[in-house]
């Protein structure tokens, strides 16, 4: 019996040790980027590196004041916000329809949504670049946001589908019997219940757009997003600019993932079906 107990104790130590090691593997590299961003430019290019931050803001200030960075940041925010709005406005009604109705063509629509994930979507930017010049959408935030929406829309549909499925139809039916119209029942009963989940999927859409590099670099010229700006200036930008840029890119994503962490698993669980 005592053999068994030591065995189990050893197993626990092994589990704990592995978990710590994996946490260090994930957090360590982020710490190093953080270290570089909060060091003076001379420390960033210097050698050997220090292992503790000096909380010097010169690198970040250099980055923010660098020609083109402020507008790139603003463009990224515009594109990500547009993507967020578009993917919810288009995706949520589809998610609701999938969860509440049986109709012909339902499985066809689901297949189309799932198919989008079997394609390298950023490649869409190539033909759209030509199409946009024709319709005047080239180099605009909206044009890029439309491509990013193809990335985010499948997620929005699947997440909202699972959210609406989690709310009993009986709640809506009860509201109808009390004299609500379909639209009223939706607005007063269903909407408040799904709002947190919708917000989460909106945030997720924002992050997808904020992080996207390829389509952003192909479709923007004058109005570069932050990722496009950083990518196309990789050859010429000094080290402090790269690392401060990387940090500014990572920071909002960290916060947003923290906010939506509860929904991550629910939405992937349903995406398996």
């Amino acid at each position, binding site marked *: 019996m005592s053999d068994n107990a030591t065995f189990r104790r050893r197993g626990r130590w092994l589990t704990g040790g592995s978990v710590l090691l994996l946490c260090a593997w*994930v957090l360590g590299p982020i710490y190093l980027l953080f270290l570089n961003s909060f060091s003076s430019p001379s420390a960033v290019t210097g050698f050997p590196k220090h292992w503790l931050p000096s909380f010097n803001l010169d690198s970040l200030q250099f980055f923010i004041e660098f020609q083109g960075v402020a507008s790139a940041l603003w463009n990224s925010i515009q594109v990500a916000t547009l993507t967020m709005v578009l993917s919810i406005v288009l995706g949520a009604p*589809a998610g609701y329809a999938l969860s509440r109705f049986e109709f012909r063509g339902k499985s066809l629509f689901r297949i189309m949504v799932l198919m989008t994930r079997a*394609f390298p979507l950023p*490649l869409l930017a190539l033909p759209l*670049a030509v199409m946009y010049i024709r319709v005047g959408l080239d180099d605009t935030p909206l044009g890029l946001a439309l491509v990013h929406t193809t990335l985010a*829309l499948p997620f929005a549909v699947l997440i909202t589908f699972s959210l609406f499925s989690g709310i009993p139809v009986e709640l809506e039916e009860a509201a109808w019997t009390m004299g609500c119209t379909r639209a009223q029942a939706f607005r007063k009963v269903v909407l408040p219940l799904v709002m947190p989940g919708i917000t989460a999927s909106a945030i997720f859409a924002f992050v997808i757009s904020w*992080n996207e590099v390829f389509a952003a670099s*192909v479709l923007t010229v004058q109005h570069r997003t932050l990722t496009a700006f950083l990518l196309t200036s990789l050859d010429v930008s000094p*080290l402090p600019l790269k690392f401060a840029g990387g940090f500014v890119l990572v920071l909002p994503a960290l916060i947003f*993932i923290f906010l939506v962490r509860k929904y991550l698993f629910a939405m992937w669980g349903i995406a398996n079906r």
Partner: protein
Amino acid sequence: MPSRGLPYLLLLPATVFLAVFFLYPFTQIAWEAFSGPGGVTLSHFATMVNYWKFPAALENTLLLAVAVVPLQTAMALAMAVLVSKLEKGRDLILYIFTIPLGISDLAAGLIWFAIFQQTGFLNSALHALGVVHTPVIWLGYQSKWVIFLAVMLAEIWRATAIMLVIIVAGMGLIPKEYGEAAEVFGAGPWQRFRRVTLPLLRPSLQTALILRTILAFEVFAEVAALGGTNLPVLMGETFHWQFDLQDGHTAAAFAIVILAISIGFTLLYLRLLRVPKGAGI
């Protein structure tokens, strides 16, 4: 209830959107790739194949996927099992493990660049340990395998989280009773994992592998940040032809190659990990 048309009305915006911005552009890629001044032509593919970097780009892209995806699958499975064993702090650990999910490939490339660049943290650590006295150039054009390794590490670091999330979600769908029953019949932890968890996890594994492999073929920004042009990959060359050389036709030919290997691998996974009808949970 006048709702026969309602579902179609609700699906209309998303359907129209996907038709215009997803289905139509893909027909355009094919058109760009196969069309020339005199009708249908394979000349753009000839240009692509004769481009001196094409064999290396194809090879690097495939090798990276082959090197990265199996390791990530194993790591994601191990992490998911570890998390399921935790008694406390489970949510915190899961949050930490999924942080890279929100990090863009470009940022991941820059993070690992901070480690591997000449005055970076790897050289600093080696210097502190007395292994090297002057900083070594790790990411130079003479040492392609180090660039390859750095990209591999960056990919594994960043993109294992997406597989983890899918697998954890899938594990949550497996009833606990199955494992308990196996335990009653004397199955050890490894046997339970191998004979109960893994087979039941097949749908999730399939999703995770398809998604991850397709994303692996799209590797781009990490390579740009770590190797510049020293490690050609398909997506990077697509960008080069579209953006620097302004040759949309050849860029589209590259795109068709990426598309073809993506679809090929998707079909392969669908076949290999076929989920028998009605056998799911």
